[in-house]
C-alpha cells in the first residue's frame, strides 16, 4: 500500500517537474508562446524551470561528492582487511588522500611547492595513465579488425573491412594513395553522413519515446521491484 503510494507520488512528481521544466525550456526557445493572461505566467515558469535545472545540477554535484566519499571509505575499509586486492585499495585511498592533502597544505601555505606537486599529480599521473589507457585501445581496435571475419565471412563484414581500409588508406598522405581521397570524401559526405543522420534521428526518436513513457508514468525506474 505504502509502496503504491510512493510510486504514485513519484510518478506525479516526475510528471510535474517534467512539465514545468519543459514549459520553461520551450519558453526560453520561443518567448512568445504564451499570450494574453497566460503571458503573466511566463517569467514565473521560466524562473521555476531555471531553478529546477539548477537544483538538478547541484544535486548531481552533491551525489558525486557523496559517491566519492563512499568510494574512499569502501577502499579504506578494504585496505584494512587482509583480502584480495587490499593493496590496490590502499593505493587508491592513498592517492586520493595525497591529492586532497596537498591541496589543503598549499591553501594553508604550509607547503611552498604545493602547486608544483599538484601539477605533477595532475599531468604526470592522471593524464599519463588515462592517455596511456586510451593509447592501448589501438591494439584492441587493430586486432579486432584483423579478426573481424575470423569465423564467418559475409558481405557485410567485407563491406565493413573495406570501409575501414579506405578510411585508413586515404588518411595516409602518400601520392600513390591520393586517388582514395576523393572516394573517402564522398563516402563521408554521403553514405556516412546519411548513416550518422539516421543514428542521430534514431536517438532523438528513442528519446521522445522514453520521455513520453516518463510523462505517462510508465518508466520502470520510478517503480520499485515489488510494484512490477
Amino acid at each position, binding site marked *: 500500500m505504502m509502496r503504491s503510494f510512493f*510510486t504514485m507520488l513519484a510518478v506525479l512528481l516526475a510528471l510535474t517537474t517534467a512539465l514545468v521544466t519543459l514549459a520553461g525550456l520551450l519558453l526560453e526557445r520561443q518567448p512568445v508562446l504564451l499570450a494574453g493572461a497566460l503571458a503573466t505566467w511566463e517569467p514565473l515558469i521560466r524562473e521555476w524551470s531555471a531553478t529546477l535545472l539548477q537544483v538538478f545540477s547541484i544535486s548531481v554535484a552533491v551525489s558525486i561528492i557523496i559517491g566519492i566519499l563512499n568510494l574512499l571509505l569502501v577502499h579504506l575499509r578494504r585496505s584494512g582487511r587482509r583480502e584480495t586486492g587490499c593493496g590496490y585499495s590502499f593505493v587508491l585511498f592513498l592517492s586520493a588522500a595525497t591529492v586532497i592533502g596537498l591541496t589543503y597544505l598549499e591553501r594553508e601555505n604550509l607547503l611552498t611547492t604545493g602547486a608544483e606537486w599538484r601539477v605533477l599529480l595532475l599531468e604526470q599521473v592522471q593524464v599519463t595513465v588515462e592517455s596511456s589507457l586510451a593509447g592501448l585501445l589501438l591494439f584492441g581496435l587493430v586486432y579486432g579488425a584483423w579478426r573481424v571475419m575470423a569465423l564467418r565471412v559475409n558481405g557485410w563484414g567485407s563491406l565493413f573491412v573495406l570501409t575501414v581500409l579506405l578510411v585508413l588508406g586515404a588518411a595516409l598522405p602518400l601520392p600513390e594513395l591520393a586517388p582514395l581521397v576523393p572516394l573517402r570524401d564522398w563516402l563521408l559526405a554521403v553514405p556516412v553522413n546519411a548513416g550518422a543522420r539516421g543514428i542521430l534521428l*534514431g536517438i532523438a526518436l528513442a528519446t521522445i519515446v522514453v520521455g513520453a513513457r516518463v510523462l505517462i508514468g510508465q518508466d520502470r525506474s520510478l517503480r520499485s521491484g515489488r510494484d512490477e
Partner: protein
Amino acid sequence: MASVEQIGLWTSFLLTLMVFSYLLGDNLLYRLAVFVFAGVAAGYSAIVIWDGILIPWLHDTLLVPNATLDQLTLGAAPLLIGLLLLARSWSTRGDGLSRLALALLIGVGTAVALDGAINGTLIPLLFDTGEGVVAGNLDSILLPAGVICTLVYFQYQARRVPEGAGRRRRHVQLLAVLGQGVIVITLGAIYGAAILTSLTIFSERLGFVVQQAQVLLPTPTPTPAPGA
C-alpha cells in the same frame, strides 16, 4: 636533488610503461597504475566540485546572513536530494523516499532530453536533410535516401518480435537492407577514424617514452633521413 619537474617526468615514464605492460596481459603493474589514477581522479574531482560548486552554492543560499526561508529551502534541496538518493542503500524503508528524489531528477532530465531531441535534433536535421533534395544533384538525393533507409532498418529491428512474425513487404525489406549497408559503412568509417585517433594518442605517449628513455640511454645526435 632532483627537481619536482624531473620527478614528475620519471613518474610519468614509469606509469606509462606500467600501463603499456597490459600488452603482455593484465598484471600487477597495470592494475597498480590504474588504481593510482583512480585515486588521483577521485581526489581532483572532489576538489573541483567542492570548490567550484558546493562552496559557492552554500554561500549563496544557506550561509547568507539573515537568509530567507526561500533561500534556506533552495540551499537545502540539493543536499536533501543527494542524501535521499543514497537512502535506498541504507535501508529498504528509504526506497520510497529515494524514488521521490529520483523522480524529481528524472522529470527534469526528461524535459531537457525531450526539448533537445525535438528542437535541437529532430526538426533541424530533418529540415536540413530535406533541403538538400532541392539542390537536385545525385548526392543530394542519395543523402536523404540513405537516411530513410537507415530509419527503416532501425524500425524493422525495433519491431522485431521473438516469434519472428511480421514479415516485411519486399520493397520495405529492400530499403532495410540498403539501410543496413549504410550503417555498416558508417560504422566502418567510425571504426577507421577511431583507429586514427588511437594512433595519434599512442604516438604522443610513444614520443614521450622515447624522449625520457634517451635521457637514460643517450643516443647519437639524430640525423635526417636521406631525402628528408
